[in-house]
């Protein structure tokens, strides 16, 4: 079963075409990375899937059901986005409890407050933090809140937009471990955008390399680890990562 299927996808910002003829299938339970430099259109793909970029042609299907161009509540429930910067993505005047309860209200999921509790426990947040504001939390805790927020409607798919690039290395390790554990426990599918190749190596099964709005190569991570990449651009990326000793 395919979790996300993108067929001949073109995405536009105004008159500019930023993603060209993108076709990618992600199987259920798989973890796929979109890799490329800034401006290569990788985040735009996530935006199109979640409905934040509406000007696209082609086909997007989530769990086998095609997505419309309008707000698609079913799709939103199954497919949640975690943003890069937890300092910017949480509402500064809403408590953790508010942030986590809102997805339930939006999707009309009845709840007696226990769901917030269990999700907080699942992402390793202490129950005492439930009525704190974002500014009272550390960067790592905030990213845990952002992940918990995404998990509230019990999605099948998480879209991750550079989930650890705003965090310190030691905190990054904690979040990466968390993401890996959640995927194992809940059988989630990940589509992650990143330019950090070691993170891909740790968390993903496959990677799609993007350049100038096109996918230039799709490879298994096992092949990537040994540096066996076909396209020159992908090899260049690998060499840049390897030369920095990571």
């Amino acid at each position, binding site marked *: 079963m395919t979790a996300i299927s993108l067929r001949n996808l073109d995405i536009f910002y105004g008159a500019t075409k930023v993603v060209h003829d993108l076709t990618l299938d992600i199987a259920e339970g798989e973890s796929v990375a979109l890799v490329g430099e800034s401006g290569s259109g990788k985040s735009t793909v996530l935006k199109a899937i979640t409905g934040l970029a509406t000007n696209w042609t082609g086909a997007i299907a989530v769990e086998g059901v095609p997505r419309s161009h309008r707000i698609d509540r079913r799709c939103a429930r199954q497919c949640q986005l975690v943003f890069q910067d937890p300092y910017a993505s949480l509402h500064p005047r809403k408590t953790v409890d508010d942030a986590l309860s809102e997805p339930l209200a939006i999707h009309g999921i009845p709840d007696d407050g226990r769901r917030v509790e269990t999700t907080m426990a699942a992402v390793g947040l202490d129950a005492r933090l439930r009525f704190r504001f974002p500014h009272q939390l550390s960067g790592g805790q905030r990213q845990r809140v952002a992940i918990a927020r995404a998990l509230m409607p019990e999605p099948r798919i998480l879209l991750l937009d550079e989930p650890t690039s705003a965090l*310190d290395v030691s905190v990054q390790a904690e979040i990466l471990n968390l993401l890996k554990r959640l995927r194992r426990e809940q059988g989630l599918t990940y589509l992650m955008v990143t330019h950090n190749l*070691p993170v891909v190596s740790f968390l993903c099964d496959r990677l799609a390399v993007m350049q100038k709005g096109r996918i230039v190569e799709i490879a298994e991570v096992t092949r990537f680890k040994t540096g066996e990449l076909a396209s020159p651009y992908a090899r260049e990326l690998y060499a840049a990562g390897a030369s920095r000793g990571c």
Partner: protein
Amino acid sequence: MTAPLLDIENLRVTFPTSTGPVDVVRGLSFALGRERLGIVGESGSGKSMTGRAILRLVRPPGRVTADRLHFDGIDLLAQSPRRMRLIRGARISMVMQDPKFSLNPVMTIGAQIAEAVLTHERVSRVDLHSRVVAMLEAVRIDDPDRVAALYPHEVSGGMGQRVMIAMMLIPQPDVLIADEPTSALDGSVQAQVLDIINEQITSKGMGLILISHDLNMVASYCERILVMYRGEVVEECRADALADARHPYTRGLLAAMPHIDETRDELPVLDRRAWTTP
């Protein structure tokens, strides 16, 4: 080696809080010659404050004290604000993290770079323009005449950072402090910007302090590394000997980083209680 450019002993930066004064830098000592020194640490470790303290950029109520804070024989702590301005930029300069917030949005790039020269020297207009263009070329900007006429919002992040570097290097300082110069940029551009800094530093024989949270990056661009944790240096080592680092914090940081050929199922997480004394 000749006398060090920067000689720092027992540097402390203190901020008052409602629960009493807090030391964010606690008794830091090091000497910098014409070499590349990296300062590594997590957020809150005091690495940026160290850079700011050297340039006397810590604003009240923050307080900087040191047994010795000498630059090229000058006692920086004894300088008047006016004298300090003559040193800042001309002798020691600093590249900030994000070009988006550090460049003046309503001045063209050429004018901003020219301003950096005019603050410290008297130059004729013709010389000024040719120096600006030459500097932009030195930081590998292809079409310097065109770029000099652009405003900061018209260039990419990587180009903006190169403009910042050009601006900081044009008065020909002796020491460059680069505070996370590439963390706002992406992978391939990062390497480019660091190569440019590196090339300029080595060709002019300057001293560099590279402040970053990225151990690997610092290890590949510096000769010496200081690892900071909670305002103190916990480890000092040669960059090529980083793998033999002894302090548990440094070892923890190294282990917590995923590798490009990662095989571990779980990354080790730092246990901070293991080495901090209460």
